[in-house]
């Protein structure tokens, strides 16, 4: 009985998640069309002409809106991978952390910024072996220096 109710709940969850995905895609496509300058008069004139710059993007956006609506109306039977709100939040936090790294990269330079990341990221991911972190940090930094600075002489931040 419990199994049955769990399955029922699971299906509802899948359908709801798919509906949200579909609606988000349709809304996003509409906003891209509206704010991306596709509806400007010079773009709309001669719209179906081969020289119209807006023809293809508008067609693709329209198709995206239709697909998004179809996904929302008929979510299908596909089971989605389950994520809790906490898991999604953690993923977004991880992305924010990586964004912060790219930002301090230009402020501190590659060596210091990468050192901070190589030490802090494993610690934040609950890895506590200091020796392991130290070896990996040295290995990666030396490799970066050898490949980018000495090897291919690429410009680094």
């Amino acid at each position, binding site marked *: 009985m419990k199994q049955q109710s769990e399955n029922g709940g699971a299906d509802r969850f899948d359908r709801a998640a798919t509906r949200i*995905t579909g609606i988000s895609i349709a809304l996003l496509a509409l906003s891209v069309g509206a704010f991306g300058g596709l509806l400007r008069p010079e773009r709309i004139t001669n719209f179906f002409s081969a020289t119209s710059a807006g023809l293809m993007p508008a067609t693709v956006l329209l198709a995206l809106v239709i697909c998004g609506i179809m*996904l929302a109306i008929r979510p299908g039977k596909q089971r989605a991978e389950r994520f809790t709100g906490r898991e999604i939040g953690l993923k977004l936090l991880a992305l924010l952390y990586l964004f912060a790294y790219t930002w301090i990269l230009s402020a501190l330079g590659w060596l210091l910024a990468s050192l901070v990341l190589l030490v802090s990221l494993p610690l934040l991911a609950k890895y506590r072996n200091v020796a392991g972190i130290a070896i990996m940090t040295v290995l990666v930094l030396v490799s970066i220096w050898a490949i980018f600075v000495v090897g291919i002489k690429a410009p680094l931040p």
Partner: protein
Amino acid sequence: MVDLSSAIAMLWQFDSIIALMIGVLGGIVIGVIPGLGPSIAIAMAIPFTLNLELAPSIALLMGLYGGSIYGGAITSIIVNVPGTPASAATAFDGYPMAKRGDGDIALTVATLASAFGGFISLIILMMLAPMLASFALRFGPIEMCFVALFALVCIILLDRKIILRATIAALIGILLAMVGPDPVTGSTRLTFGIFQLSAGIPLVPLLIGLFAISEVVFELTRATSSGATKFPRIGFRLPDRSILKRVNRTILKSSIIGTAIGILPGAGPTAASFVSYSEAKRSSPDPESFGKGNPEGVAASEASNNAVVGGALVPSLSLGIPGDPITALILAALVLQGVIPGPRLYAEHYDVVLYILTTLFLTNIGIVVFGLLGTHLWTRVLQIPNQLLMAGVVVFATIGTFSVNNSVFDLSLMIAAGLLGVLLRLGSIPVTPLIIGFVLGPLVEINLRQSMILYAGDWMVLWHRPIAGLMFLLILTVIFLPIIKESIRRLSARRWTSQ
């Protein structure tokens, strides 16, 4: 002959040989690590190749391609965790073999099968691709538009359970490719006033974000270590002569299957390994032994997934149409190096084609040498904790992305692409059609609009240009044939039950 000597001269450079060795070794290591695979390996290598000359960059990419597909087999056999999805079928028999103490035989069979699969597909690539390329020289914009559309449709229809999601992914890819200058008028589109986007979205940050960054985010928040403590017997040992005879037959058959599947757009090494495994089981005199440690199972899966490499390069090199994300990445890397894949590549730069073939040949020799000699070393890679590996991937990916254009904006794009990758995975939308859409979108658009200008929107052109008409029919067949077949099946089933 001049082309061949030019190709050999390219290969005879110290840089090329070193790049090939690094590619094979790096590819095997990346293939061994679960979660990382050929796509991430090649996406991360593209920034390096931009700072290299053509010869070493092709050598690096080919080495990574072959090496990373092979590397997945090692993890499948030793710890029953496929290093790449393409080696999942290898675990069915490889792991039971390792558990009963024949891990060294399984690794030997996997290594030899991978190399022979690669060799056989290379021979087919050498025969088939020039024919296709010379035929494709007759193609005008309308034919190229339909060829690109055909590849796109095949990839969308690959899994009929997720057609809508795959279509959405492909459309997003096409849309992203449209950011920047219009290919006909040159006016900018969809830039939202951001100046840096006026040249379009660069490929490297997009690929690294979608593949590497999103994978890192998922791996980190999963927070499980891949550390395996006890390994079964590993090393090099040939099976008995009677088994070897059966294995050889399986390798040959699976290599042909793998190459054929590789030529088809979208199917890729994972589908090839499963199809070959099923065929080997079906045609075996002892099908019950499959799944319990039959070396033929390992040989079938590994020969076919490596044979896909040559097969996938047939349409990629001769038509410029990638069949999967990995070849899309390789094509992108070639374009960034100034080599435009397509029918003209065979006419104008046949030396480059020969060089690609030679590096693929050497990659397969490298797989045998490094695969068999380095077994103990590769298993050590599995003991590195995930958290440390992912930190290394982030640093390499970020610095690699920055080094391409010396641009901080590219790093923000990379993170944005990472966010897109995470959102797509949360919404169960596949990434493969997005990449193919991004690569093929501009090809479809420019050829479609050129055709509209040339033929003034006259659809009767399909009648006058039979190749285009046939391609159009082929697209319609691919879309509607399964629907018609399903309807006929339902109708006949209903009629049968009513009788």
